[in-house]
């Protein structure tokens, strides 16, 4: 019931929202936020259960599609992250949001798709949920985006479609090549257990993995599959980018971990040098583009791309420690990127622009946006891996875990990560300091309600920094188990991995 509740809450609210009176936008917004918070509460309740919930309902057995839902160490933290960031995105949306019923319903639909994907224990169900996400997110970009929203939405849709199709192809091929080739009498099952139990021929594994990497690599994104990301992040409303960067992109990471590392270990091992190289290239490409960016939103987009590179490196290495780092990075980055875009959204709402050349003096104590800028600085410091903030334990685990397998790529990523400080300082020097333009500075300071999402996210970023177990303990056992499947070499490292804590869940 818990699992169903996690899905039914956004589904029901998403259906009710359009029926509410258009004259009560506050109620619409409040209901959307309450739904996400209720989902978060349900998710937290599931934390305490041992063993975590599982649910299996028959749906379309002829197609091998069943409603297999489950929570484990990989999916639970991501479900919580999704619920949290959905709530924050709703609260970060302006009180006078245009067409609120549709807007918040689409946000909840996105939430439904993402949570559905994380809960899915069936690959086809995962694909369905994955595809579902594309529709509301495209509409959110297309309807509420900036001046170039049409182009952004088309590109987002095209890349998303390719991603979905390649994923569908990969999953179907996985089932058909595996169980079909084995001559199973019954219908093909796409449940994770069935897929894991069905060995694929090595060549088939590689083709399937190539399709999956294409699908998830676009969603993540990773260079050279990132074409949709900078323009989408720059044009979509900031609360929507909080969802895209903080949650939706994590579907890609989760998929690579669950399908690539978990289900196709041999092919993953074979491709891992190339995947690690792509991660390193992404890290450098993202960092350098962020340094050269002339718009804060594009800067954040490229920063996010760079940090996804670290994630890909950790996944490629697939040691227990690197996978733990990957999961920590997923959570930390989710919080950080949501905080960053929340702050960027406030800046845009107040100043009317995010063009770096048009902004200066925002750290001004009275006339500027010192609170917002302060939190943005903190988020950038967290992204740079400053100790005491969420990025530090995540990046430390990524680098330590990946070093033994891909030392050169790790070194490159390490240097690229250092560039975060470069563009953060550059951004602050131009936007935070200098003379505040009197003609532009005619705005009111941020109100408590506007600050709330940033305060909540900041608290969690700091909390995760000083209590890293909050990031790692969820998935310690799960990632160790996956890593063990993958390579003998990492078995030795497991002995060095931190011991499971009270938060850890069964694999």
């Amino acid at each position, binding site marked *: 019931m818990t699992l169903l509740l996690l899905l039914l809450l956004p589904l029901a609210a998403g259906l009710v929202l359009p029926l509410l009176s258009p004259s009560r936008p506050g109620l619409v917004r409040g209901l959307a936020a309450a739904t996400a918070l209720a989902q978060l509460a349900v998710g937290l309740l599931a934390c305490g259960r041992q063993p975590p919930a599982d649910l299996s309902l028959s749906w379309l057995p002829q197609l091998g599609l069943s409603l297999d839902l489950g929570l484990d160490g990989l999916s639970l933290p991501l479900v919580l992250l999704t619920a949290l960031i959905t709530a924050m995105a709703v609260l970060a949306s302006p009180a006078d949001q245009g067409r609120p019923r549709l807007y918040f319903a689409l946000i909840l639909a996105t939430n439904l798709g993402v949570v559905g994907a994380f809960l899915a224990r069936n690959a086809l169900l995962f694909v369905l949920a994955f595809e579902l996400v594309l529709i509301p997110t495209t509409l959110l970009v297309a309807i509420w985006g900036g001046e170039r929203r049409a182009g952004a939405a088309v590109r987002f849709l095209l890349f998303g479609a390719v991603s979905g199709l390649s994923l569908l192809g990969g999953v179907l091929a996985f089932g058909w090549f595996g169980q079909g080739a084995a001559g199973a009498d019954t219908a093909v099952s796409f449940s994770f257990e069935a897929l894991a139990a069905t060995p694929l021929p090595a060549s088939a594994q590689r083709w399937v993995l190539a399709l999956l990497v294409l699908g998830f690599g676009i969603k993540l994104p990773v260079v050279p599959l990132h074409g949709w990301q900078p323009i989408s992040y720059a044009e979509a409303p900031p609360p929507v980018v909080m969802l895209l960067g903080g949650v939706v992109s994590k579907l890609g990471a989760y998929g690579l971990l669950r399908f690539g590392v978990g289900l196709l270990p041999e092919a993953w091992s074979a491709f891992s040098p190339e995947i690690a190289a792509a991660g390193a290239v992404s890290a450098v490409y993202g960092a350098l583009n962020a340094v050269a960016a002339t718009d804060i939103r594009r800067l954040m987009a490229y920063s996010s791309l760079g940090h996804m590179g670290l994630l890909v490196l950790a996944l490629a290495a697939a040691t227990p420690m690197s996978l733990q780092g990957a999961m920590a990075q997923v959570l930390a980055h989710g919080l950080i990127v949501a905080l960053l875009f929340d702050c960027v959204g406030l800046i845009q709402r107040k100043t009317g622009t995010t063009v770096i050349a048009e902004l200066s003096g925002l750290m001004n104590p009275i*006339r500027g946006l010192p609170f917002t800028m302060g939190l943005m600085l903190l988020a950038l410091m967290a992204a740079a891996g400053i100790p005491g903030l969420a990025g530090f334990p995540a990046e430390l685990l990524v680098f330590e875990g990946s070093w033994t397998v891909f030392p050169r790529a790790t070194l490159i990523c390490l240097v690229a990560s250092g560039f975060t400080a470069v563009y953060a300082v550059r951004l602050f020097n131009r936007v935070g300091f200098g003379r505040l333009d009197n003609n532009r500075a005619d705005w009111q300071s941020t109100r408590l309600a506007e600050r709330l999402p940033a305060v909540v996210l900041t608290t969690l970023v700091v909390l995760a920094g000083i209590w890293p177990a909050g990031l790692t303990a969820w998935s310690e056992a799960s990632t160790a188990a996956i890593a063990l499947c993958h390579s003998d070499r990492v078995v030795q490292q497991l002995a060095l991995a931190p011991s499971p804590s009270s938060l850890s869940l069964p694999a």
Partner: protein
Amino acid sequence: MTTTTPAAGTKTPLIPPSTHRYAEVIHRLEAGGSMLPDTPENLQQIIGIYKAYAVPMDFYWRDLLYIAEQVFLNPLPAFKYFISQEYLDRPCSYSGDQSQLRIWRGGEKAHPELIEFMERGETRRMPKLLHHLWHDRVNMEFAEACMQAMLWHQGMGGRFNDYLASDAYKANADRAIKAYFKGNPLMLGLYKLFPDMVLEQVKQLSYYSNLGLFWEVMAPVFFEMSDLYDEGKLTSVPQAMDFLVNGIFAVAGRPIYHHVFIRGECFEIIPKSEGFTWLYEAALPYVEAVFYRTSPFRGTKSYNAQAGQVPANQADFHYGILYADVFPVGSAGIPPTLLMQDMLHFLPPYLQEMYKTHRRGEEDQLIQLGITFQRSMYNVTSAVIQALRCALLYPLDDSDPEHLTANRQFFEAQMDRFLRPEARLPDIQTQDYR
């Protein structure tokens, strides 16, 4: 009374219009106006801020003189801002029944609003030391920053600075130093070893006295302007400027001196007999040092001297209120913030109401009043420019084109100082600058 207003009826200009970038302002000055446009709001703003400035200024001048005359060379002057009752009650020389030269109507002792604030502060009635430590007090640091600007720039006309290097001054200072440290072999030994170091401190204290005597004039002037406005007798910006010009001429010849009182005995370090006068030795150097030059304030912006961001010549410094970027006001501890905080305590209600209706309302009053202060100081500077023109050049209603051309050149030379991009003269021409 001196007036800067030209005779009515001058229809045909005797000289062609100015082609200066600030031609409009120059023509206004030639017509007896101020650099600040004559609008009812400008008048309200500047008079309101003069009142808010006058109250802390009443403390500044008293404490500056207290430090120069009583604290003197105390090596640990921890209580220099704890002004004695004697200095709070010290009769102002220019207002009150006991004044030496009563020109303005105000009282002679410290202003009642100042006394009330010193007792209660922003917080509540508590011991003076707690008010001091909580920084709930008048920020004398601002006054000292102004004094230091005058000391540091030095040589801005007049003879005062030269006198500080004279033998007569050194002899007077030496007597006072030895008397002050009498019975203190440590400090006397230090003086013996480093006489210039102690002498430099005395020079600084002479500037304390100089600035104290300057503000002793300005405080009652500003109080009276506020009263006249409240009574409906000041109705335009040029009138406000003329009042200042008349005030300047009324006290131009008043003495600037430095006396020190040590164990009841008065030591005349700069005697009145030296003939230093208020206009040339205090007012003009003050305007030059504080309104125009000062120095980059720490904490607001980084300046790279090696990149030429700080002028090599002190005379080219342009960090005074006429050029100041008021927006960083609010940064802790910088002199402009300290002054704005002081004035904030004494804002008249009509200014508070005005600020509530613009920008961030009460949240950014500090900046709004800073910009008002900037406007008001452009008006004071206008008064000084007009006073100088009166003293050195020709009347505005002169019928000789050569004389008018000389006036024009003088005004244009003054406006040249605002050609640099940092100058706020263009900003104050509109009410949008807040």
